[in-house]
């Protein structure tokens, strides 16, 4: 196989990330120093991020049968890299108090990020599988990074066992599809399966099993059970990564797969997806209502948010702008989650045992840390989809897609979900402004705003508000990157 120069250039983000990975391994082997590790990681990820314009300039490039670097891929690579960079900065503050080896945190993070990049461009079941595994395996280590904490270790083991089971489903589903179509690339699958009679058992079985795997990674009901425990147990920076990068990348490949393989729109699968969307929205929101742990609450909230996004997939063959809507919504979700988890990270940094995740730790925070609280308030409003935040633009698009596709009952589920969701976001907001309790367990450091993590948090808040007021740049950006090459 020969590579042209533009194909190599198209691979730049991936190459730079893996390059940073190797450099970091060598650096660790030579001399342990968490500052160096941080610098190498940040430099690698930043270079990868800034190489995206170069990649874009190459036009659509199919690199090997495995990867398709088109506008769609570049956009999601951007999201993945931004999420990973933010996680690094949160991680750095958190690791300051961590009494063990700190460098591997960055290494695992880089591997997972590379997995996310692969998924963003994946057009082949093999690269899909490689990407998902590269993304998931390092997460076991990251979730259990604070292994001295019982919760963290438990979460790691739980995530590992369940994830392995889900991967097995995914793999088996792929095998069935291969048996039917004789190929693993999305476009071949699309072409061959288009002629297969509807409701073919092998096809339905394959797609169904793959759906189980995807649903697990995206924590869609009824495969969501791991989510709250893992979110709670994972250190706050890792939970950030789990909520953003890992889910965004998997969603990206699911949407591409769904668009490329028309058989996936079989009525049976369509209804299955729709039912999962509704159930995820309802269950996620209902279970979040009574949480007193903010990380668990965010876990349930992410279940419902991916339920909303699944609605976009369901509508994607009926409406005009599913890719645009998914892009806008995920961009919103990324910045909002970064802000929200960033605040939790700030509160839990540096590492001092269990994270500051009970709602009680946030009581009256406004009267001590007004700016940090303002950020969290904005993020809660954005997640709830209140106007003047980016969240509203996301919700606007979301409802727009379902209305355009005339899926009224899905619109109804989203309406119900937003009303339910508002309740627990408001509960967090209320807590922030209550009178302070007498004793204070955990608090953000006084100088949180001038740490790199603090800057990321403030920047996300500024973006969420500014783009909520003037969303045109977001929409133009997403429209500029929405060309999906399917064949």
């Amino acid at each position: 196989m020969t590579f042209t120069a533009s194909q190599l250039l198209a691979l730049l983000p991936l190459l730079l990330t893996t390059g940073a990975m190797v450099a970091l391994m060598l650096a660790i082997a030579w001399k342990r120093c968490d500052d160096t590790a941080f610098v190498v990681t940040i430099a690698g990820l930043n270079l990868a991020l800034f190489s995206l314009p170069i990649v874009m300039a190459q036009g659509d490039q199919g690199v090997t049968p495995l990867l398709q670097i088109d506008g769609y891929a570049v956009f999601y690579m951007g999201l993945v890299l931004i999420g990973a960079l933010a996680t690094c900065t949160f991680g750095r503050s958190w690791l300051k108090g961590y009494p063990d080896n700190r460098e591997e945190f960055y290494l695992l993070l880089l591997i997972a990020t590379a997995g996310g990049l692969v998924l963003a461009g994946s057009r082949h079941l093999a690269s899909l599988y490689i990407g998902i595994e590269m993304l998931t395996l390092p997460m076991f280590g990251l979730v259990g990074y604070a292994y001295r904490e019982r919760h963290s270790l438990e979460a790691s083991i739980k995530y590992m066992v369940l994830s392995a089971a889900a991967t097995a489903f995914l793999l088996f589903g792929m095998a069935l599809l291969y048996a039917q179509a004789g190929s693993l690339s999305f476009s071949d699958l699309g072409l061959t399966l288009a002629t297969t009679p509807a409701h073919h058992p092998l096809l339905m079985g394959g797609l169904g099993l793959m759906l189980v795997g995807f649903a697990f990674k995206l924590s869609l009901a009824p495969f969501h059970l791991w989510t709250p425990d893992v979110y709670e147990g994972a250190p706050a920076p890792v939970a950030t990564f789990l909520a953003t990068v890992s889910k965004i990348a998997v969603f990206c490949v699911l949407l591409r797969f769904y668009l490329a393989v028309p058989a996936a729109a079989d009525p049976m699968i369509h209804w299955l997806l729709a039912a999962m969307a509704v159930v995820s929205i309802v269950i996620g929101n209902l279970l979040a209502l009574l949480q007193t742990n903010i990380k668990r609450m965010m876990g349930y909230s992410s279940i419902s948010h991916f339920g909303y996004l699944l609605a976009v997939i369901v509508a994607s063959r009926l409406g005009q702008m599913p890719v645009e809507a998914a892009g806008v919504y995920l961009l919103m979700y990324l910045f909002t989650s970064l802000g929200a988890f960033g605040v939790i990270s700030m509160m839990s940094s540096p590492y001092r045992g269990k994270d500051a995740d009970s709602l009680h730790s946030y009581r009256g925070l406004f009267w001590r840390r007004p700016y940090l609280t303002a950020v969290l308030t904005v993020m809660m409003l954005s997640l709830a989809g209140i106007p003047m935040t980016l969240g509203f633009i996301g919700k606007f698009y979301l409802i727009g897609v379902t209305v355009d596709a005339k899926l009224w009952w899905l619109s109804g589920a989203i309406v119900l979900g937003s009303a339910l969701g508002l309740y627990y976001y408001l509960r967090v907001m209320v807590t922030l402004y209550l009178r302070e309790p007498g004793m204070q367990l955990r608090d953000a450091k006084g100088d949180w705003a001038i740490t790199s993590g603090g800057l990321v948090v403030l920047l996300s808040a500024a973006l969420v508000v500014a783009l909520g007021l003037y969303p045109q740049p977001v929409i133009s950006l997403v429209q500029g990157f929405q060309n999906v090459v399917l064949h």
Partner: protein
Amino acid sequence: MIPWYQNLPLWVTFLPLLGALFLLFVPKGSRRTFELGALAFTVADFLLSLPLWFQYNRHDGGVQWAFSADWIPSIGVKFSVGMDGISLVLLLLTTLLGFIVVWCSFTAITERHKEYYIWLLVMQFSMLGVFITQDMFQFYLFWELMLVPMYFLIAIWGGPQKLYAAIKLFLYTLAGSVLMLVAILAIYFLQLKVTGKADMSIASFQAMAGVIAHQSHTFQILLALAFFLGFAIKVPMFPFHTWLPDAHVEAPTAGSVVLAGVLLKMGTYGFVRFLLPIAPGATKELMPYFMTLALIGVIYGALVAMIQKDMKKLVAYSSVSHLGLCMLGLFALNPNGITGGILQMLNHGISTSALFLIVGIIYERRHTRLIAEYGGLSKTMPLYATVFLIMTMSSIGLPGLNGFIGEFAILQGAFQAAPWLAVLATTGIILGAAYMLWLYQRAMFGPISETNAKMADLNLREIAYFVPLLAAAFWIGLYPKPLLNVLEAPVEKLVRQITPTYYDQVDLTKGQKEAAKVGMAGMPAPAEAETHEEAEPSHGGGH
């Protein structure tokens, strides 16, 4: 570039936001700075809004002061402002109440002044924004944004059950408004399909009425219901009213005043601006149900108000009753009813706000709102008793005060549309007189307790903020003509949007018009002459 004074609505709206930003950068500590700062900004805003009254062209029912700029071109959203007469009167009511609520908070708010006044100003900004907007997207933005400051005003400075009340308020209204968003988007995509261009302006939505009328019956009904729910929860109409008493009881006085005075008007304004012109067909079909709900609200609200032991709750339920009446007028879908409904919005804004201020004043002195705790206050607080009496009379619609004009027009309109409902609605008005007078009697007359005897009468500041409300009550009651002139053209336009042939019919049946005049002549003095004139313009539109 248009000179700034021709763009006044924009300045009036953004001045409070400017004030909020200004206060944000004032260091904490000096309570006086925030109080006076907020007052200065709101008074300036009120003064700035007054010229609008004179700039307004009374012969043009369309949008005036129009200004628009691109905002989100991809989805056809513009930053678009402009007002007609209906928006104008509500905007003026808002700016008037704006400085009153700041002023009444000087002693009531004892902690966290900075945040409080900032939220009040943001509240003011978002409410004004709703009235000046000419774009659906922008409207929805302001419509929901409003909830955030209100939520904080109740959740931080409210009573013992404040969290419950604040969350309930937010949840109820949000659930309704998201449904409305679905309806908005449904029209948007329909328009995109029909005309091929993305446009979110209110005018283009209203222009869609013809296309919507040709959609399937179910679509029309669902569309109307989605809008209806969004607005009915905000009004609130029976049976969606349960958030209102809770929110009122827990809110600080200023919060209650804003809530009753302006926030509830958003719902009724929404009906006037969106539901009626956009889906007139379905609205007409659903009119009997809507009117029945409004009527139930009138009577139910009054009955529940009668048995309240808590003054604030009583006033809150009276709101349910009064707004029911307002909706009854609007759904009559004729000029009298709609004009009456709009007047009722204004009157309710004046008298109920004043009543909340009145309750707030004795609450500040005694820290209880139980009616049983009071009695004989007229002996020690004569000025207070006078203001209370005038506002009670205004609330029950005594001729010569503002309440009467609105109620009369509503009943007239409702009688034309559904005579029996109008007849039943009068019982609500009678009940209204009963609970208000009974409240007044229990609180103001009878023996006075020792604690109550020590209560101080109104001070200068309190008198000062009642003066504009009293003046407005008398002005509307005695000489409503200028106000009716302002409303005439936009109401006529609205009625034409609902029933294009309405005025032709009226012209053909001159007798009906004469009959209306005869009906007017039988009205009791002293408002006779004025109301006679009042009826003139709202009927004369067909010439």
